[in-house]
C-alpha cells in the first residue's frame, strides 16, 4: 500500500511515528524501500514478533479463505495472486498456509478456495498432510455451509497428476460442501490457466461475499513472498554467477557443482531452508539440432503467450521446455506431425510415461521425425519453468551471496549425451562472471528451531544443501542445540560433498555427530536409513529430548526409506506399536518437528 495513505487510525503506529516514517520513506528510492521492508520483516520475525492471528477472521461470514498447500512455492504464488485480485474486487480475504489452518474451523467456514500442489506419487505436499488426513478421517463432519473451489497444480509427466486437488474436491463434495466451480488441474505451465480460473471463481464468489470497502483490516499470516525485494519470480534478479566449482572427485560418477551467485544490490534475502529459483536458457546446440531435425528455419517467427512474436530459435532457447518431457508434448507433436505410432503411445498414459522416462524432446523428434510448422512446434512445447534449488548457504555466513549444490543431470542415451536444462546451463554454459536470473522462494515449512533445540538432518547427495545452510546459520549464531547430520553418496573418496567443511564442523563441535553411508564402497550397499537404524537408540534418545528431524533429497525412495527407518526406531527403541509409531511421527510433523524438503 502507498505510504502516503498510511495513517495512525489504520496502523499500529502513533501519529508521530507515521509522520517520521513517511519522511524517511520519501527519501528512499523503490529498491531501498523494498530492502527496508524486507529488513523489517526479517527483524520482526527474528524478534519473535507474533503477527495477529487470523483464526477469528476466518469465522467471519464475509471472508474468503484461501488456503495454499505449496511444495515449491507455486501454489502459494497462485494463491497470493488470487488474494490480490479478490481484494481488488473489494473482497475480504484470509490467505493462509494450509499447514497452519485449524481444521476445527472448517465447520464454520463458508467461502473457501484451496490451491494445492501434489507431490511424489499422488501424495499431498508436506504442508497439507494434516489437513488431508483430517478431511479423510473420522473427525471430519458434514460441511453443508461451505462453498468451495479447488485449484490443483501438478506435472503431467507424473502418473497421479494433481491427485491432491482431486482428493480435496471429491472429499469436500462428499462431506456435503457446495462446489462452486469445477477444479482446475493445471500443468507446470499454469499461468494462463490459473488466470482464467481465478476470474471465473471470483465471479462466482463475489455475489456471495459482502462488499468490504470499509472492512476491518485482516492481517494475512503470510508475509509477502518477495520479502521486501523488488525482485521475485515474475521479475527475477539478474545476478552474477561468481563461482562454479565441481565438488565431486575426478573419478566420480556424479558431477555436482558448488555454485555461488551474488545477490549484491538486489535486496533479496533468504533464510536457511529457502530455495533459489533459477531461470535458464536451453543449449543453443540442442535448439539447433531440434530445428535441423524438424526442418524449421531458425528465423521463423512464432507467437508466444508470454512474449509475443519471437523467432522460433529464441523461443526454444529462452522460453520453452526442452529437457523435461511431458505427455502433452507427445500428444501435440504426434498430432501435428500426424504420426500414428506416436499418437498411439501418447494415448496410453502408462506407455507414454515409460516412453518419456528416458527421452528428452529431441529424442522423441529424432525417433519420430515429421514435419510441422514453427508455430506448431512452439505450441506443442510447454513454457519453461524456472528450477528451484535448495539454498546451501546462510546469509549470516556469506552475506549477499547465495550458494547452491547442483547435481548436473548428464547421461548417455540413444547414442547421444544428454544434459539437464538448468543444471547444464549453470554447470557448463555459464562462465564465472556471467549473468543468471534468479529469485528467492521462501519455504516456511523447512526451518530451524530455536537455537537450543537439537536437530537431526538427513541429507544424502545434493540433499546436503539446506543442511550446509543450517550449519552455517547455527555456527554463526553460536546456537547451543546439538546438530547431527546423516550424509550418503556412492563413494567416500569421490562423493563426500563438502567433506572438508563438515570435518571442520565436527572438529569444532558445531556438528555433534556425523554419520555417513557410502553405498558403493562395499559389496553390500549401505544407505542413510541403514546408518539411522544402526544408531536407532541414540536417534530415539535425541527425539525424546525434543530434536527436530529434517530430510532433504530424493522424495521417491530415500525419504520413504528414512521414514520407515524412523518408524522402526520408534518400535525398537520406544516400545511403540507400528501404528503408534506412525502416529508419533505424524504428531512430530504437525508440530513442525519433522520437516521434509524432497524432490
Amino acid at each position, binding site marked *: 500500500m502507498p505510504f502516503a495513505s498510511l495513517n495512525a487510525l489504520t496502523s499500529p503506529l502513533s501519529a508521530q511515528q507515521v509522520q517520521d516514517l513517511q519522511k524517511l520513506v520519501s527519501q528512499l528510492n523503490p529498491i531501498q524501500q523494498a530492502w527496508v521492508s524486507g529488513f523489517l520483516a526479517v527483524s520482526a520475525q527474528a524478534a519473535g514478533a507474533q503477527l495477529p492471528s487470523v483464526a477469528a477472521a476466518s469465522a467471519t461470514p464475509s471472508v474468503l479463505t484461501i488456503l495454499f498447500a505449496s511444495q515449491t512455492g507455486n501454489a502459494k504464488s497462485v494463491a497470493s495472486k488470487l488474494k490480490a485480485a479478490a481484494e481488488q474486487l473489494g473482497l475480504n480475504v484470509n490467505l493462509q498456509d494450509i499447514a497452519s489452518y485449524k481444521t476445527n474451523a472448517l465447520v464454520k467456514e463458508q467461502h473457501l478456495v484451496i490451491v494445492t500442489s501434489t507431490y511424489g506419487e499422488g501424495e499431498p505436499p508436506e504442508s497439507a498432510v494434516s489437513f488431508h488426513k483430517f478431511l479423510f478421517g473420522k473427525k471430519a463432519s458434514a460441511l453443508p455451509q461451505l462453498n468451495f473451489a479447488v485449484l490443483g497444480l501438478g506435472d503431467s509427466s507424473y502418473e497421479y497428476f494433481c491427485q491432491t486437488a482431486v482428493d480435496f474436491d471429491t472429499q469436500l463434495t462428499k462431506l456435503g460442501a457446495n462446489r462452486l466451480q469445477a477444479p482446475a488441474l493445471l500443468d507446470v505451465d499454469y499461468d494462463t490457466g490459473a488466470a482464467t480460473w481465478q476470474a471465473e471463481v471470483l465471479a462466482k464468489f463475489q455475489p456471495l461475499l459482502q462488499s468490504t470497502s470499509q472492512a476491518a483490516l485482516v492481517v494475512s499470516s503470510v508475509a509477502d513472498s518477495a520479502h521486501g525485494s523488488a525482485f521475485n519470480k515474475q521479475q527475477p534478479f539478474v545476478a552474477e554467477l561468481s563461482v562454479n*566449482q*565441481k*565438488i*565431486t*572427485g*575426478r573419478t566420480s560418477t556424479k558431477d555436482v557443482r*558448488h555454485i555461488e551467485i551474488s545477490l549484491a544490490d538486489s535486496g533479496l534475502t533468504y533464510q536457511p531452508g529457502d530455495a533459489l529459483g533459477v531461470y535458464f536458457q536451453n543449449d543453443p546446440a540442442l535448439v539447433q539440432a531440434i530445428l535441423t531435425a524438424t526442418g524449421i528455419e531458425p528465423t521463423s517467427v512464432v507467437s508466444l503467450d508470454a512474449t509475443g512474436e519471437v523467432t522460433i530459435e529464441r523461443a526454444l532457447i529462452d522460453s520453452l521446455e526442452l529437457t523435461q518431457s511431458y505427455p502433452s508434448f507427445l500428444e501435440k507433436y504426434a498430432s501435428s506431425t500426424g504420426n500414428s505410432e506416436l499418437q498411439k503411445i501418447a494415448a496410453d498414459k502408462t506407455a507414454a510415461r515409460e516412453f518419456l522416462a528416458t527421452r528428452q524432446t529431441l529424442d522423441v523428434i529424432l525417433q519420430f521425425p515429421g514435419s510441422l510448422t514453427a508455430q506448431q512446434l512452439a505450441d506443442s512445447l510447454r513454457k519453461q519453468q524456472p528450477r528451484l534449488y535448495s539454498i546451501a548457504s546462510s546469509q549470516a555466513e556469506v552475506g549477499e551471496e547465495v550458494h547452491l549444490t547442483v547435481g548436473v543431470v548428464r547421461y548417455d542415451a540413444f547414442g547421444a549425451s544428454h544434459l539437464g536444462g538448468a543444471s547444464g546451463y549453470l554447470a557448463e554454459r555459464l562462465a564465472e562472471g556471467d549473468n543468471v536470473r534468479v529469485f528467492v522462494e521462501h519455504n516456511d515449512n523447512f526451518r530451524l528451531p530455536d537455537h537450543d533445540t537439537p536437530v537431526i538432518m538427513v541429507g544424502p547427495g545434493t540433499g546436503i544443501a539446506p543442511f550446509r545452510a543450517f550449519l552455517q546459520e547455527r555456527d554463526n549464531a553460536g546456537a547451543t542445540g546439538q546438530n547431527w547430520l546423516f550424509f550418503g553418496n556412492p563413494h*567416500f*573418496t*569421490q562423493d*563426500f*560433498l*563438502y*567433506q*572438508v*567443511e*563438515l*570435518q571442520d564442523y*565436527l572438529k569444532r563441535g558445531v556438528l555433534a555427530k*556425523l*554419520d*555417513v553411508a*557410502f553405498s558403493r*564402497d*562395499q559389496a553390500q550397499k549401505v544407505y542413510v536409513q541403514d546408518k539411522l537404524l544402526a544408531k536407532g537408540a541414540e536417534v530415539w534418545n535425541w527425539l525424546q529430548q525434543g530434536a527436530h528431524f529434517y530430510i532433504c533429497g530424493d522424495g521417491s525412495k530415500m525419504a520413504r526409506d528414512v521414514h520407515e527407518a524412523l518408524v522402526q526406531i520408534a518400535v525398537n527403541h520406544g516400545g511403540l506399536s507400528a501404528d503408534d509409531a506412525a502416529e508419533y511421527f505424524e504428531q512430530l510433523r504437525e508440530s513442525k518437528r519433522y520437516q521434509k524438503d524432497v524432490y
Partner: protein
Amino acid sequence: MTKPTQYPINPDLQVQGALSDNERLKTQSQHLRGTITTDLQNEITGGFTGDNFLLVRFHGMYQQDDRDIRAERAEQKLEPLHNVMLRARMPGGIIKPEQWLAIDKFASEKTLYGSIRLTTRQTFQFHGVFKPNIKPMHQMLNSIGIDSIATAGDVNRNVLCTSNPVESVLHQQAYEWAAKISEHLLPKTRAYAEIWLDEEKVETTETEPVLGDSYLPRKFKTTVMIPPHNDVDVHANDLNFVAIAENGQLVGFNVLVGGGLAMTHGDKATYPRRAEDFGFISLEHVLKVAEHVVTVQRDYGDRVNRKNAKTKYTIDRIGVDTFKQEVEKRVGVAFAPSRPYEFTHRGDRFGWVEGIDGKHHLTLFIENGRLLDYPDKPLKTGVSEIAKIHKGDFRMTANQNLIIAGVALADKAQIEALARAHGLLEDSVTEQRKNSMACVSMPTCPLAMAEAERYLPTLVTHVEGILAKHGIAEDHIILRVVGCPNGCGRAMLAEAGLVGRGPGKYNLYLGGNTAGTRIPKLYLDNVAEAEILATLDQLIGRWSLERNAGECFGDFVIRVGVVAEVKISKTDFHA
C-alpha cells in the same frame, strides 16, 4: 630418560634437553597401539589422526595422498586422497611364487595405482591402499606368511641381504642370518597382531628389551652383505654384517656401523656418512652384536634433535671407539681385527646365471622397480604368469630388480619366453639404464620435493645420448635421482646423484664410485635440467677423452679436481 637401564648409562654421552615430540608419542603409544583401532572405524576421514599418523609407520605403513590432485581436491572441498603405502618385511627379499600371486591380486584389485613397487629396501610396496582395505591387506599378507612389522618408524627396518644366486650355499647361510637378525630386532609388542589380525588382547606387562619402551631415536637399517658385491650399499646402513667365508662356508662377519645417507637441505649439522669397520665377529655372536649396536644407539642416540638422531651422528658425537667399546662391553666379546674383503661393484647381474648348485637364475631389469601393466609392456602380468609356473622363488634386489631364482634347466626356455613376451627381458636396455635408479617420490611420497621415479626414464635417455655423443655408449655412470635428501634412492652413493630441491630443481652431487665406498660432493646447487645436462655433457666429454684406463666417472672427477673427495663426511662434505 625412561629407558631400560640394563646397562649403566653415562649421562655425559647423552644429548640433554627437551625431548622431541616423537619421543612423547612413542612413550604414550602403549607399545605402538595408540588409538589406531578407533581411527579405522572413523568414516569421516581416509587418514589417521593425531599420533596415529606416525604410529602406523611402525606397522609398516605411511599415510600418503595423491599429490598430483591435492590442489584439485582442495578446490573440490574434499580432503587429500588419503591412502597408505605398505612396505612388507621380507628379509633378503625372497618371496615365493604363491606369495607373489597373492600380492599381485591384491595390488590389482585393492590399490589405487594397481602396481607392485620393488624398492631399495629389497622388498615390495603397495601404493594407494584406502582405509577400508588396510585390515584386509594385513590379513591377506598374514595368510601367506608375510607381515610389515617395523618396516618403517624408529625401529630396525627390513634387513637386506646381498642377492647372490651364484654362490648359492653362502647366500643361503647369509640369508638365514638376515632373517634371524630381523626377527631378533623386531618389536615385541603384540600391537600388530591385535590391531590388524584381530588377535586377542593379552594382558601382559609388555616390555621391549631390545628396542626400549620408547623405541629407537630414529630409523635403523641393517644389511647382510656378501663381498665383493655391494648391491645392498652398506654405507647407506646403520649396521652391516659383511660375510666372511672360508672354503665357501660362512664363518663370521666384519661389522660395519654408522652408515647413512639422509641429510637436511641447508642444515650443515647433517650429512651422509660411510659406515665404520668395527672388526670381525664369529657366528655365535651375531645376534648379540646386532642387539647391542642397537641398544647403544638406543641409549646414546640423540632424542632431542631428530635431525641428528641417527647412528652416524651418535658415532661422530661419542666417538667410534667409545661406541665400539660400549658394544663390546655389552656383548662381552671384543671385535677381532677385520678380515680382508673388497667391494667391486653394486649393480645386479642381469640375464641368466648358473649357481654352483646347478640351478639357473634370471635377473630382470625392472625400471624404477615399478611393476605395472603398461599399454605396450604388461610387466606385472608377466611376473604373475611366471609365478604361476615357477618352481623356485623370486628375489627382490636392493637395486629394485627381480631375480627369478632356482629354475631347472628344463624350465629355462619357458620362463624366458614369458619374460620376453611381457617386456620383462629386453636386449636393448643399455648399461646406463641398468645402473640408474630413483626413489618413488611424486605423486605418493609426502616428502618429495621434485620428481624422481617419473623423471628418471627421461633423464637416462638424455644421458644415454650424451654418452653416445662422446662415443662411449657402452659405458655408464652410476646415476641416481631422489626426490628429497632423505636417502631412499641412495643418490649420496652415486657417481652422479640428483637430490630434489623443488619442482624441476635438483642439487647435483658428483664423485661417488662404482663400489659404493665414497660419498659424492655438491657440484651444482638448486639447478634445472638444462644446466644439469650441460654439465654432464661437458664432464662426460672430458671423461671420455682424459680418463685413465678403467677409471670410473666418479674417480675421474675427483682426480682432475672437478670436486674434492669426501673422506671424512663431518668435515669434508660441506667444506
